[in-house]
């Protein structure tokens, strides 16, 4: 479904060049949830943004359902895939209420029963009607993140690109969101790419997980092997060790 071959992303700031993504290749099947973990700054968000067509990239292939992503119109793209950004504050319009943030996509795609859709989307992510007319700054961090998830889900797109979708959620709300994503995958074979720092979260939801460091995928590991600690790369083993918690002796 999602086919990425030799993806490269470079950024220019001032006269410095930064090669953020280096020769990244992977394939995600329809209905699969593919995970990406790795070092902070290793290029995970850049991979998602390149797939969504939000930043420039070079590649030998970047296609969805066999069709190059760049050949599509923005409107068609937004029906096909939605992205939940790592930084919910930056991605929600500060002067729009939750209601108008959610309504926007419904208007663009002329969808009926907008109020019903909005109420369902709010309830699906565990928010209440009292949040419907609030502005982003009147919500807690986790409530904002759930608005971003609700906005991505409201069009029921076949593909979701999720960048740290539960990092601001307590484990009880996280459990509800992960269960929701699991149910959607069952009910309409939703395809996901999930970026997370939480190995337990990726192992729970994903079948295969790419481990990134310095812009490259150093290893693709199955959830089973991750659980059993059957790693090929030392870096992956380090991540597993570090996720056991903080240790005062060093």
């Amino acid at each position, binding site marked *: 479904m999602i086919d990425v071959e030799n993806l490269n992303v470079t950024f220019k700031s001032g006269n410095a060049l930064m090669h953020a993504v280096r020769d990244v290749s992977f394939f995600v099947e329809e209905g699969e949830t593919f995970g990406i973990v790795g070092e902070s700054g290793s290029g995970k968000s850049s991979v998602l943004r390149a797939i969504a067509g939000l930043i420039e990239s070079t590649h030998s292939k970047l296609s969805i359902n066999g069709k190059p992503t760049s050949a599509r119109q923005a409107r068609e793209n937004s029906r096909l895939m939605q992205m939940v950004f790592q*930084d919910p504050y930056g991605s929600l319009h500060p002067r729009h209420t939750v209601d108008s943030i959610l309504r926007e996509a419904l208007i663009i795609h002329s969808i009926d029963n907008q109020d019903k859709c909005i109420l369902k989307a709010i309830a699906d992510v565990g928010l209440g009607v009292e949040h419907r007319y609030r502005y982003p700054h009147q919500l807690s961090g986790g409530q904002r993140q759930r608005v971003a998830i609700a906005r991505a889900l409201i069009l029921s797109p076949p593909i979701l690109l999720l960048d740290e979708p539960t990092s601001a959620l*307590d484990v009880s709300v996280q459990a509800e969101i992960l269960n929701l994503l699991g149910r959607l995958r069952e009910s309409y074979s939703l395809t996901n790419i999930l970026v997370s*720092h939480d190995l*337990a979260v990726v192992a729970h939801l994903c079948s295969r997980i790419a481990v990134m460091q310095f812009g490259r995928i150093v290893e693709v590991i199955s959830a089973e092997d991750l659980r059993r600690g059957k790693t090929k790369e030392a870096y992956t083993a380090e991540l597993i060790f*570090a996720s056991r918690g903080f240790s005062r002796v060093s």
Partner: protein
Amino acid sequence: MSEILLDVQDLNVSFPSQRGTTKAVRNASFTLGRERLGIVGESGSGKSTMGRAILGLTPSPGIVTAKKITFNGENLLGRSEADWQLLRGRRMTMVMQDPKYSLNPVMKIGHQIGETCRLNLGVTGQEAQRRSLAMLDAVKIRDPDRVYNLYPHELSGGMGQRAMIAMMLVAEPDLLIADEPTSALDVTVQNEVLRILDALVRDRGMGLIFISHNLTVVSSFCDRILVMYGGKILEECKAKELHHAKHPYTQALIAAAPSLYERRAELATVVRNPEWLK
């Protein structure tokens, strides 16, 4: 631990609006010594609001009342904004939950950290630059020289979070409220940042309030934990004993966390009980 740095009694924060009043914090009382106090709890339970109220940063139209809030024995209630300016930064500070929102979007990272340095420590330009670079390096930024010259939108999520931590720590505060400071960091970098915070508490006697959703981190890193729900502190326990917590909410929280070692089809969810807020 015996020495009390921060004493909060009966703190209430509410947000009035035409659609009714939100009671974000209800009768919260706790003390903090030179230790690591963890705060966990449901999204929207009032953790950030409580942190902001302690630092006099409640946005309008929020209303803060308390029987007592003291810091090093000094009363913090009813202070003027000029008073707060003197206290915040050098003596008490907060790492905010949304780093990109809290950083100045049109100022280079290095200058922002350097500015904090100059304002709070009175050091000169070059010394400020040296300290800023050293701090970026301490929070494990791979190439401090490059990042020093970047704008906030050019940073990855975790780099922004570490820039924010660097900016707060460079002022050497006595009290740090860290709101989800490591949520965007991979686990190895997270442990390095925790090591820095740990050393500041141990060696410099800093008081640390550590707000986090990560139960593994909180229970392995903190000394004590407060559990919040619906604006109330439901229970307090020793960090090491979190897994034997008594309150049904805390028990449900622990059960809802996915595990790396055990496969589950569905995660347990919490059945919320209105009785908990009585």
